[in-house]
């Protein structure tokens, strides 16, 4: 590795020269950042706080991903669960007892040693205090330390997605026993991850490499997260070398950036999906023919193109293509004639007035809604696009005060995340009021089916009904778009949007 360094350095020299051709170089290291070997990353928002069990903000998890560890972790490519703090795990015959064997060479950032008691403490903290991610432990009856290197989790019913629930992201991170009493976890972090949390203020958050990291100390000295909300500023900073990495890339810039030699751009399918949903309790949207007519009239390709400039794949189900659990079911073909016939047959008086609630928190929903409105107008549906702020949006959603809305589900790992609480009768996220006993039966069976193939069949069957009934009107899976300096190496862009700088190398 050391031998190739001078070569890489020479290459950078040439790049730096060409980059500065436009004018005199500026002092860009003055932002309070570390030395030359610190990665500066432009992120779009400031973390709200650093307690992994409390926050729900993506900006916080961008940082926490690099500071904390979980028992298991999604593989960067296909997101199947692989070892992290647990070396391996097994399930009992009846599927009710999970045994996790733990690493014995892990120390926390405060020097204390990691063992089973820390796992028990962390999980029980989430469960007992009903913190943000308590819902992930719904099936968990107990978490116990068998010995310092073994943890046993008992569940009330077979839970094949338990690894995804306890390791899908850093919201279920392992903290040292007693940490919540000993430290102010909202501002301090005591993890086992590759970086320690340094200072954090209104401009930046700084991380330093953790020399005793069990996976081997990172090659870079640290990471400085800079909050740059304006995408044009973030891109300029990347092009001039002020920052080396950013995820604040507007979709409309992707094409222009692909030809830019100063920037390495990656755009890969994510595990997110965006959908529209109609209120079953509001006529005429409780009428399946009306919902099907709308699903038939909408041209998903056009919506996707307008909302994401092509950095997305139109989809009629939730799970993106290529995933083991993906379904290729696609019954609707953007046919306005067929949609009009469906509406006529339904006998519902036209025109239908529909309020479509979207939020400027996610500007792509506003754009998509405008396209949807123009596509539904010809078949006799007058869409009023209602743009509200996210707080109002959430209020109205939970109160059922909407005709229709558009939003997305982000960071899904298991088919359970994609489908369960959204479509099961009375599900916590079934705001549209969908109820189909057959779907309930299939979803319940799938949630505890331990055979992967059989589980996929159950979900496939449920999904066909969900799509046919238009419980959700699925639109598209967006891409994850990130850009970095060409001479940054070792970074892997992930479909779950987790940002991990552990293996990054700077020239």
């Amino acid at each position: 590795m050391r031998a190739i360094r001078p070569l890489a350095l020479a290459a950078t020299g040439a790049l730096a020269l060409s980059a500065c051709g436009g004018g005199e170089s500026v002092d860009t290291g003055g932002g309070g950042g570390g030395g030359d070997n610190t990665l500066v990353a432009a992120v779009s928002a400031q973390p709200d706080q650093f307690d992994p069990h409390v926050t729900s903000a993506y900006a916080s998890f961008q940082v926490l991903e690099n500071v904390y560890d979980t028992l298991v972790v999604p593989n960067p490519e296909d997101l199947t669960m692989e070892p992290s703090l647990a070396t391996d795990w097994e399930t009992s015959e009846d599927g009710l007892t999970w045994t996790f064997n733990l690493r014995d060479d892990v120390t926390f950032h405060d020097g204390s040693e990691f063992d089973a008691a820390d796992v028990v403490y962390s999980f029980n903290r989430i469960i007992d205090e009903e913190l943000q991610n308590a819902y992930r432990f719904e099936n968990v009856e107990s978490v116990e330390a068998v010995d310092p290197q073994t943890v046993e989790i008992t569940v009330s019913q077979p839970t094949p997605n338990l690894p995804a629930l306890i390791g899908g992201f850093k919201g279920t991170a392992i903290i040292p026993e007693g940490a919540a009493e000993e430290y102010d976890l909202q501002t301090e972090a005591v993890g086992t991850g590759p970086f320690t949390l340094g200072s954090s203020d209104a401009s930046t958050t700084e991380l330093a490499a953790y020399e005793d990291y069990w996976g081997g100390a990172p090659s870079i000295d640290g990471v400085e997260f800079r909050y740059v909300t304006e995408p044009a500023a973030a891109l300029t900073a990347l092009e001039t070398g002020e920052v080396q990495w950013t995820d604040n890339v507007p979709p409309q810039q992707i094409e222009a950036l692909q030809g830019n030699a100063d920037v390495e751009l990656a755009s890969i399918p994510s595990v997110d999906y965006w959908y529209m949903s109609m209120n079953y309790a509001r006529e005429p949207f409780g009428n399946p023919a009306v919902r099907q007519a709308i699903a038939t009239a909408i041209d998903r390709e056009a919506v996707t193109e307008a909302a994401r400039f092509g950095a997305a794949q139109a989809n009629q189900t939730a799970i993106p293509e290529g995933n083991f659990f993906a379904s290729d079911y696609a019954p609707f073909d953007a046919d306005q004639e067929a949609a009009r016939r469906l509406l006529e047959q339904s006998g519902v008086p036209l025109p239908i007035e529909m309020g479509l609630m979207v939020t400027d928190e996610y500007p792509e929903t506003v754009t998509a809604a405008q396209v949807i409105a123009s596509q539904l107008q010809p078949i006799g549906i007058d869409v009023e696009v209602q743009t509200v702020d996210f707080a109002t949006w959430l209020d109205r959603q939970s109160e059922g005060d909407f005709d229709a809305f558009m939003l997305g589900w982000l960071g899904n790992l298991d088919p359970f995340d994609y489908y369960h609480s959204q479509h099961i009768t009375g599900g916590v996220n079934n705001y549209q009021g969908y109820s189909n006993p057959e779907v309930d039966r299939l979803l319940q069976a799938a949630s505890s089916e331990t055979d992967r193939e059989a589980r996929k069949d159950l979900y496939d069957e449920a999904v066909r009904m969900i799509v046919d009934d238009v419980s959700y009107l699925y639109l598209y899976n967006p891409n994850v778009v990130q850009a970095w300096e060409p001479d940054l190496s070792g970074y892997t862009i992930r479909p779950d949007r987790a940002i991990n700088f552990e293996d990054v190398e700077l020239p």
Partner: protein
Amino acid sequence: MVVLAGVSVVVFALVHLVPGDPVRLALGTRFSQESYDALRERSGLDQPLIEQFFTWLGGAVTGDLGVSFRSGDTVTSLIAERLPATLTLAFASILVALLIAIPLGTVSALRPRSVVDRVATVISQFGISVPDFWMGIVLILVFAGTLGWLPSGGYVPLSEDPLAWLQRLIMPAVVTGVVSGSVITRFVRSSVLEALGSDHVRTAQAKGLATRQVFTWHVLRNALLPLVTVTGVQLAYLLSGVVVVEIVFSWPGLGQLALQAVQARDYPVLQGAILLFAVVFLVINLVVDLLYTAIDPRIRR
């Protein structure tokens, strides 16, 4: 004090009247009802509103503005952290604004309807009507991107690195300064014009005083009063945060804090920020009144 007490009631009522549930926002989209209830209790939102108000007021009187829902930091520390950046930008912008407004307004008043006057009108109209985010992005693309003269944004405290501080201050100060300066230019022009036409100036000219003397002693001094007023208003506006410019230039000022607090319905931070803005307005009004008496002895009577 009476005003402040009234303000605090209005602030609290307004903030709580805005629809939106901070607990739901904090939890995002995936959570259980139990988590919701637990967080609601922890943040004290399950208490009767009137009780919440007196708890907050009791703290506010002693300088304790409560704790942010989002971050768990005290509101005073969040505000204190952002105050230097806001003060820096506000005063730098006013400086830029006055450097633009006083010469431009005076020159165009001295030669009304001349080419100079027309050009000045066009410039100030441009400054008022061009959106500040657009001006900001153009500056970034040109001076940080193409020319590479300045960093694209951010903030460095003066004490840490004076050069980096200045480099990062220039663009945001120019954008806000141009906007404020355009507004002030209009006032300078009209007040100088008015002073030029007043009786005492004509008398002074009739007495045979030199033009230069007439101008500095009789015109400018009289034109100063409205200038102080409008500058005070602009300063108060700048001190309560210039959200758009702060976002474009990643400037960690109070405007961004207030915006984040609104978006998260972070009541304690929002109340603290609005209360601070109210105090700023009161103080600036007071200072303007004092300046009046210093400039114009007649007011003292």
